[in-house]
């Protein structure tokens, strides 16, 4: 285990920022700490770094309890959200700072800095000052500076928060490649679930100071442990329903819930991909109108309106859309092939329910 947290809590004044959090990170893993702002994820990162002291609980790095070890001696690399580059030093001196502190010899420093400059595509920038760099370059200098003294753990706080979308994508790829090259255990904080899903091996999800779930991107997407996770990771349709005679109803929609009592109020959740669409109005149970199409690239998100005014979000591929010949304003039929009963937050979710429904026509049938 590279990093281990045991029942760690942090209280600021009256506010509990982190509550009884335990998790561990294996050697060489790339882990995302994900959650909405104020969720406690940055506080967890800063406690691992030693920039905050936990109110209770233990933090272990490579099996050694580090609660009482000062930041300077923890051998971690930390990348700050706004980079915190030394603005009075040029790029070379920024990267060399940690090496000078560790009393490396001059030629060794030179060699190490040069190799990092090359690796991070910063060659020729040695003499520039932070204010002469673009956002992406500053970020890479910050990463190079943190990596220079060969830390055992690399910690990044919202590393891609302050750059624009295109550079962000590049930096994500950088991070994955760097992680592969250095194989240093890496934790990064983000509020962007897409970023967490794309970059990390595992995701730790926080909300209001609590650890909600830890798992691989696929696990947290497909098997969310509670409503918060289910709603936070990816898009989800959430409807409030009332159970009557083993069926939960929301407007014209009906969901079979044989195990629930009459009169019980529940929340039903389903992913957009679970909403199947056809232009054959007789094929599926519900009728609706395609109100709007959102282009997300290879995938399209559709907003469907049922006669009652109920809005459903669906998702299909560009090819499917073209084959079906869909257009905004068109009448369609649809069904929901899978759904979940979302009870209260924090409660464990029951498994997904797949009602017995007609299968969609295979693409290209009838040609």
């Amino acid at each position: 285990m590279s990093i281990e947290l045991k029942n760690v809590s942090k209280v600021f004044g009256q506010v509990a920022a982190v509550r009884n959090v335990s998790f561990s990170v294996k050697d060489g893993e790339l882990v995302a700490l994900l959650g909405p702002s104020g969720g406690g994820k940055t506080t967890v990162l800063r406690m691992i770094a030693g920039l905050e002291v936990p109110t209770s609980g233990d933090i272990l790095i490579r099996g050694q309890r580090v609660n009482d070890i000062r930041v300077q001696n923890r051998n971690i690399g930390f990348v700050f959200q706004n980079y915190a580059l030394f603005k009075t030093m040029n790029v070379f001196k920024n990267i060399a700072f940690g090496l000078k502190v560790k009393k490396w010899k001059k030629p060794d420093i030179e060699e190490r800095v040069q190799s990092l400059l090359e690796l991070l595509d910063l060659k020729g920038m040695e003499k520039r000052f932070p204010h002469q760099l673009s956002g992406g370059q500053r970020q890479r200098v910050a990463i190079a500076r943190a990596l220079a003294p060969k830390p055992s753990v690399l910690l990044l706080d919202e590393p891609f928060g302050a750059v624009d979308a295109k550079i962000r994508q590049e930096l994500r790829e950088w991070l994955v490649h760097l992680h592969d090259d250095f194989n240093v255990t890496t934790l990064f904080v983000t509020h962007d679930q897409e970023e967490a899903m794309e970059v990390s091996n595992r995701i730790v999800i926080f909300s209001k100071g609590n650890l909600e779930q830890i798992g691989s991107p696929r696990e947290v997407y497909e098997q969310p442990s509670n409503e918060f996770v289910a709603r936070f990771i990816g898009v989800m349709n959430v409807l409030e329903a009332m159970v009557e005679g083993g069926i939960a109803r929301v407007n014209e929609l009906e969901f079979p819930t044989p195990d629930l009592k009459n009169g019980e109020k529940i929340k039903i959740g389903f992913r957009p991909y679970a909403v199947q669409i056809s232009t054959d109005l007789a094929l599926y149970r519900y009728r609706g109108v395609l109100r709007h199409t959102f282009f997300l690239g290879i995938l399209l998100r559709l907003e469907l309106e049922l006669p009652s005014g109920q809005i459903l979000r669906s998702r299909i591929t560009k090819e499917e859309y073209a084959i079906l010949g869909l257009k905004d304003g068109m009448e369609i039929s649809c069904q929901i092939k899978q759904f979940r009963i979302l009870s209260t937050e924090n409660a464990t979710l029951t498994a997904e329910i797949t009602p017995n429904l007609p299968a969609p026509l295979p693409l290209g049938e009838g040609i």
Partner: protein
Amino acid sequence: MAGNLKSIQRKGSEIAEKRGTEESPVVKWTLISLAVLFAVLFLLLPLLNVFYQAFHSGLQVYLDSLRDADSKSAIILTLKVAAVTVPLNVIFGLAAAWAIAKFDFRGKSLLNTLIDLPFSISPVVAGAMYILVYGVHGYFGPFLMKHDIRVIFSTPGIILVTVFTTFPFVARELIPIMQSTGTEQEQAALTLGAGGFRTFWQVTLPSVKWGIIYGVILCNARAMGEFGAVSVVSANVAGETQTIPLRIDSLYLESKTAAAFALASILAVLALISMAIKTYFEWKTEREEALAQMVVEEPS
């Protein structure tokens, strides 16, 4: 023909440049002339007159009046006062700015207000306050008498009141800089293994360097030019407890106008140099900020 065309073009561009919020030209030019008139009448003319009066009776008189023993001793005393006051002010300013910008503690806003006190209290009152504390009949008077230490009517007193009146200069310059810089750079230094000492000298100090220089310039100008507070605690003995401003005053009262203005011209030159350096630093920081705003092209 061509001239006509040009005037039409000019008229066109004037109309295009005029914004909806702009005042009429009459208001605009009245305000500008008023401001310039006041500046010339109340600032520039008196300043120029200092130099005119100083050199009025010729260069020889000017140099002689500076070589006068009492004037010389006034210059030396003034330099001494500044030499002690300015470093004290830097140390205090750094400590206060650091405390206010980077820590949260009870009474922080009180300290912040207290720093400004010397700006709002009349220097004469400041001098009187020190007499009440260190004078013969003051709180520490008997103690100081017993140990034969002279504070009031002597150099230490002059230094004390000067420290008081220049108190806010460096701190006021540094607080906004340190507040905007925050503590992230220091934290970054810590995560890289640096200790407090190295962090201060290599990270904190360089980042507030201009603020310190700027504060020192202002502090120095004020320390050398302080009159009110110093005149209260100095016995105004020529050759002993006279600083440059006091010396100018007494020369003027003795109707030695040329000598008074010769000394005054030294203070005026000092002020002008301070202003020039200050303007240069402002220009420099502005340029640096503009540069920081510029996005440098990513090399492909």
